[in-house]
């Protein structure tokens, strides 16, 4: 219950900040723009015409669900990569501001356990990420569904995978904040892990480019510990694009990401429990 109260307070703070309002407004404007300017002519379940801003675009007559796949795939990639990076920068301040001198003493004097504070902050931020991703992807699904009569939740699943990826990155950001109490350090660690995770997704092909022996073993050892962000990103875009993916592969990746997040968060709590403020 206390964890949820802390997460809810974080949401209240987020929605009082102009950057989050700008983000919400930008996603909403994008959805309104799509709703007002995109016209899809559907005949017997096939896309026969497409108008964007009133201009007709030549399309081959194809089944609607097939025609929409590239759009959903593009949306999934946007949500998974640039949007996640934007969230890393946007959310970097939350944990350090909670740990700021004068704030943390007050929080710790309340009947709140230290792990509840860490977990509440973490869940609040990951929840925010899920909210914005689902709002964008869900809105796009609904609008295109209303225009074509074909409703699919594939982009929503892809957006959820984006949240899973962000959850792993944000756990490291929380740990950095506990250690250094700095938004810059937190954002730096987040961005570094994000790009390292992108490389880790290609670890097999990259390893073959590294000289055999100790350097390759070191690369493989380090990247084996990292969340494979690009691998999950590929899965997310494949799901959104309607390609078949192995359930076991997806489940394995998700479990790996969540295990990474849980381990790093546990380390953050361990450090937080021993820290004086």
């Amino acid at each position, binding site marked *: 219950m206390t964890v949820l109260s802390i997460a809810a*307070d974080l949401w209240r*703070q987020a929605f009082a900040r102009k950057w989050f309002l700008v983000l919400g407004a930008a996603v909403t404007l994008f959805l309104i723009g799509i709703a007002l300017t995109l016209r899809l002519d559907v005949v017997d379940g096939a896309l026969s015409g497409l108008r964007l801003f009133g201009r007709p675009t030549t399309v081959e007559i194809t089944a609607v669900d097939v025609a929409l796949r590239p759009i959903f795939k593009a949306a999934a990639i946007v949500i998974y990569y640039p949007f996640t990076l934007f969230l890393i920068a946007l959310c970097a301040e939350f944990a350090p501001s909670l740990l700021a001198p004068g704030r943390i003493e*007050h929080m710790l004097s309340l009947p709140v356990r230290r792990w509840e504070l860490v977990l509440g902050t973490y869940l609040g931020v990951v929840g925010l990420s899920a909210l914005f991703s689902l709002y964008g992807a869900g809105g796009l699904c609904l609008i295109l569904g209303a225009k074509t009569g074909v409703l699919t939740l594939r982009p929503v699943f892809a957006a959820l995978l984006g949240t899973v990826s962000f959850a792993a990155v944000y756990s490291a950001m929380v740990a950095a904040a506990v250690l250094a109490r700095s938004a810059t350090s937190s954002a730096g660690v987040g961005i570094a892990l994000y790009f390292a995770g992108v490389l880790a997704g290609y670890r097999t092909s990259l390893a073959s480019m590294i000289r055999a022996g100790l350097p390759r073993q070191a690369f493989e050892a380090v990247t084996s510990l990292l969340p494979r962000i690009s691998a999950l990103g590929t899965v997310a875009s494949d799901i959104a694009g309607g390609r078949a993916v192995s359930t076991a592969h997806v489940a394995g990746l998700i479990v790996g990401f969540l295990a990474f997040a849980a381990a790093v968060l546990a380390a953050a709590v361990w450090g937080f429990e021993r820290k004086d403020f």
Partner: protein
Amino acid sequence: MYLAIEVHDIEKRYRTWRNRKGFCALDGVTLEVPRGVAFGLLGPNGAGKTTFIKVLLTVVRPQRGRVRVLGGDPEDPRIRARIGYLPERLDLPAHFTPVTFLASVSRLKHVLPVRDSILRLIHRVGLANDSGRKIGGFSKGMKQRLGLAAALIGQPDLLVLDEPTDGVDPMGRIEIRNLLSAELARGCTVFLNSHLLAETERVCSQVGIISAGRIVRQGSLAELCRAEGRWRVSFAPGADRERLAAAGFRAVGKEFLFAGDDLLALNRALDTARAAGAVIAEVRPDEKDLEQVMSEALTPAPVSLASPGASA
């Protein structure tokens, strides 16, 4: 005797990677504060006052010693729910209004955030006209008042206040003092850490003085301020100073000091003074103010160069 705070032989050392021995902020502090009193902790900068308060609230964990607050372990959230705390440097969420901030603290204290009671609290600390403003635009004094309101949520049994009137205007200080008096009357224990000695003197009935991480004086204000066997006497203008001096009165400014515990001796001296034509205006026990008490407590005793045990 029911104790609000029991601290026994606390040691807190701040260590760094480079300095493993560290800096000793609290060095074997033992202190007991009875319930229902106002206790003031005094001391110079860096003496360990804030560290002591943080130990009480588990914000800082000591390496050694035992801490009990309100009869329990302060690590227990149920104990901390009965404590109201105002930190020295309060950083409040700038985007919140006082109402949303106090509602948030209420939820974390497991107190139902009823709007009416929150507004009453805001009114009580003198922020009624600013209840809808964002905290980011508040002055330091206003933030202190709001922090005090947060500390008062849930009618705590113990109020721990670290420099509560820092940045507060004189009228605000009076209001806060009245508020603390009301809390004391309710049965709350007040633990005050303030640099303002006059404020501590007005609010607190018990005082502890801490220096270099050690409690060097502790007791009731009356005990600490009493100067053993001295009386302060005022005579009406025109008294003969030489004859008063001969009777045993030492002039200190416009007043006179009479040294001695014996009341009969005092009366005899007063009779002599009256016989010499002096008119007595006032006789009272000579009491030190807190500034003197603190100054005496913090002044190191002179080291005797020729101590008996010293060998040549």
